[in-house]
């Protein structure tokens, strides 16, 4: 990050403190605090939506079996999974397992909300870790976390942040872990390590898909993470067109490392869509897929709900006291102060470093845009195929996939902010050390 040319022994104590403060971990910590502030509102909520009946799980288990043992809770999860799998042709065993155990052993509201907040927080942290791995830019990663802090918006009807047993944050965690592992698999120096990491990534993807079907449509995230790894390893000739590079890369031996992930994805599709759906005996109309003219409008409306302030209303202030408003304003001012300091002191230098470090930025950027588009469009695509949702969506209203879209939208905003700051930089003709350009 920002560096000083003075020798260490000449620094006075104040400068030493300031040097420590401006280090990268300090900025990551501060931006993580901003993100934590954004997610901490989850702690203020009560049981929401399906969490009301599902929070009764331990008591039902206790009543039915006389004992709240892990075996009985597991059996309960198995029961509900079987009901949905054989009846509706849906497979999300991991969700049943997670939610049944969570409700059984996090019976007090605060402990459940703490885990819910933690999952959302962790999803954001893993997302920026993935983004850093792909972009090699700390600025870009921190921008993404700041952007995420303004795209996270609770909804009054179906809300994945404060309800539904943290199902969507949970799939985000697994998908991002899969993406990070897939990226490591492609950059690994030996094949054994590469295949091992790929197998771990495929396992994480399988867990994600077995948590909620939306993860199936997030496969491109993992593919892109893997592919950017290939770009970083092969360091392609800048004169070769992107398409030619793509075709050439697909033929390389490195691509074989992606096979475990691909097989897992296809196997899930065959199992769920090719077997379970066809043999389910009580499929509700809600889960029947189709296509009509309304699908297109549903899809288009669903590209926008995750943008900042789409659900804010001035009536939101009505239930708040002046003290609470002042507190929230102070928290916002604190977050903005961190951003200002970051913008003023850190990113110009950091950008230069990241640009120098990532000479393939022009190839990586389109793929990052594609990744963001997948996150934004996939949930809307899913809704557009469900008759139940035709005509029910709007530019501000979505369903549980809204959380996925918020991550994608944050990435788009971050790409925009990054390009805005890149314009602050002008290439020098001299070969002088880039660090000195700050001075």
């Amino acid at each position, binding site marked *: 990050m920002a560096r000083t040319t003075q020798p260490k022994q000449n620094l006075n104590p104040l400068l030493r403190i300031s040097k420590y403060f401006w280090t990268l971990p300090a900025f990551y910590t501060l931006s993580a605090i*901003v993100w934590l502030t*954004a997610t901490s*509102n989850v702690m*203020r*909520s*009560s*049981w*929401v939506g399906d969490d*009301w009946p599902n929070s*009764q799980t*331990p*008591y*039902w288990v*206790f*009543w*039915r*079996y*006389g004992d709240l043992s892990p075996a009985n809770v597991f*059996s309960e999860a*198995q*029961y509900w999974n*079987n009901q949905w799998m054989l009846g509706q042709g849906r497979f999300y065993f991991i969700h049943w397992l997670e939610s049944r155990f969570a409700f059984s052993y996090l019976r007090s509201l605060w402990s459940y909300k703490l885990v819910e907040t933690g999952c959302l927080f962790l999803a954001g942290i893993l997302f920026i870790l993935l983004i850093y791995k792909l972009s090699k830019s700390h600025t870009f990663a921190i921008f993404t976390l*700041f952007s995420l*802090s*303004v795209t996270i*918006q609770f*909804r*009054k009807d179906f*809300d994945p942040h404060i309800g539904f047993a943290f199902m969507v944050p949970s799939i985000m965690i697994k998908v991002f872990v899969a993406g990070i592992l897939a990226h490591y698999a492609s950059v690994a120096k030996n094949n054994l390590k590469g295949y091992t990491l790929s197998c771990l990534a495929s396992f994480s993807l399988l867990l994600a898909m077995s948590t909620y079907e939306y993860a199936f449509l997030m496969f491109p995230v993992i593919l892109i993470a893997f592919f950017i790894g290939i770009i970083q390893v092969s360091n392609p000739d800048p004169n070769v067109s992107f398409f030619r590079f793509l075709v050439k890369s697909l033929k390389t031996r490195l691509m074989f490392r992606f096979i475990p992930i691909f097989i897992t994805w296809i196997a899930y599709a065959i199992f769920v869509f090719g077997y379970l759906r066809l043999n389910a005996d009580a499929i509700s109309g809600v889960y029947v897929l189709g296509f009509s003219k309304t699908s297109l409008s549903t899809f288009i409306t669903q590209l926008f709900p995750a943008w*900042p*302030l789409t659900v*804010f*209303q001035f009536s*939101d202030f009505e*239930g*708040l006291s002046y003290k609470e408003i002042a507190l*929230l304003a102070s*928290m*916002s*001012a604190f*977050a*903005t102060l961190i*951003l200002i300091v970051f*913008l003023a002191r850190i990113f*110009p230098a950091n950008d*230069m470093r990241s*640009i120098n470090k990532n000479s393939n930025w022009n190839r990586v950027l389109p793929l990052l845009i594609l990744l963001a588009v997948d996150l934004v469009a996939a949930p809307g695509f899913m809704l557009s195929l469900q008759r139940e949702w035709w005509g029910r969506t709007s530019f501000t209203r979505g369903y549980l996939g809204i959380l996925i879209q918020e991550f994608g939208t944050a990435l788009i905003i971050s790409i925009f*902010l990054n390009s*805005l*700051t890149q314009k*602050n*930089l*002008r*290439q*020098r003709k*001299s*070969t*002088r050390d*880039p660090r000195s*350009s700050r001075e």
Partner: protein
Amino acid sequence: MSKHYHLRGSYINVNRMLLISFYFFIAFFFTLVHNFAVARETNGRDFQYYAWQSLTRSEIFLSGVKESDVFISKYQNDAYETNAGSFFWNSGIRLTYLFKIDLLWPEFNKCDAESECILPNVREKVKNTVPNLQRGAFVPVGRDKNRTDDWINLKSLPGALDNSRIWFFDPFLMTTTTFVGYLAPFDETKESASIKFKDLRFISIASTPNPEFAPSIASVCLKLQQADFDTTTGLYRHYWEVPDTLTSTNKRYSSIPDALDIRRVEAGTCSLGENK
């Protein structure tokens, strides 16, 4: 050769920086406000939730209720905490089940007190309905043989409910600050489902020590029996009973009835001094 950069004119920097920061502040602040407001709105049921905990932990209100007894309710809702599982967890009394009434009599809503229809054989209805609560085909195969501990399977065995008492019970929010519940045993000698009215007990739960109103059932004002404070939830509980004699203002009955058709069991309010 690596690329090297320097910053453009600083005023551009400052303008961009201020614009980004300004937009961020606005978006972050309004988002926090919105999320705070939505999160707070979800606390609307908290009072009912804690009042239910308080009700189900009251030994006074639940005196006489034993394991395997059956509760039947008009307003029970499995979507929330008012269920047999939560009842067992809080009270330690394992009911056979807490039925919503239309599970036993699907025609209940069409069968009002003024009509000719009757709601017969409450015990038979219960005995025939309990086996429907078994988990059937969806029970995981690997665990099926070990399910002898399944409460519903045990209660579906012949004679399992012969000694169970059947109660009419309803918990609900009467005003925004008072949660109430009534409980009365069924009078099984009657042709249509009825309760033993004189055995009815009533509880009102509030966060303030003094009750807002005196409750009534079927227009009969109830008499305050006693009160206590639940330290776990911080709520005050008031216990009410059916009085020995009617007040002079009651025009529906000449004397307190022994039995009351369950369709006539409706809660209302009286002024506090009505029945001391």
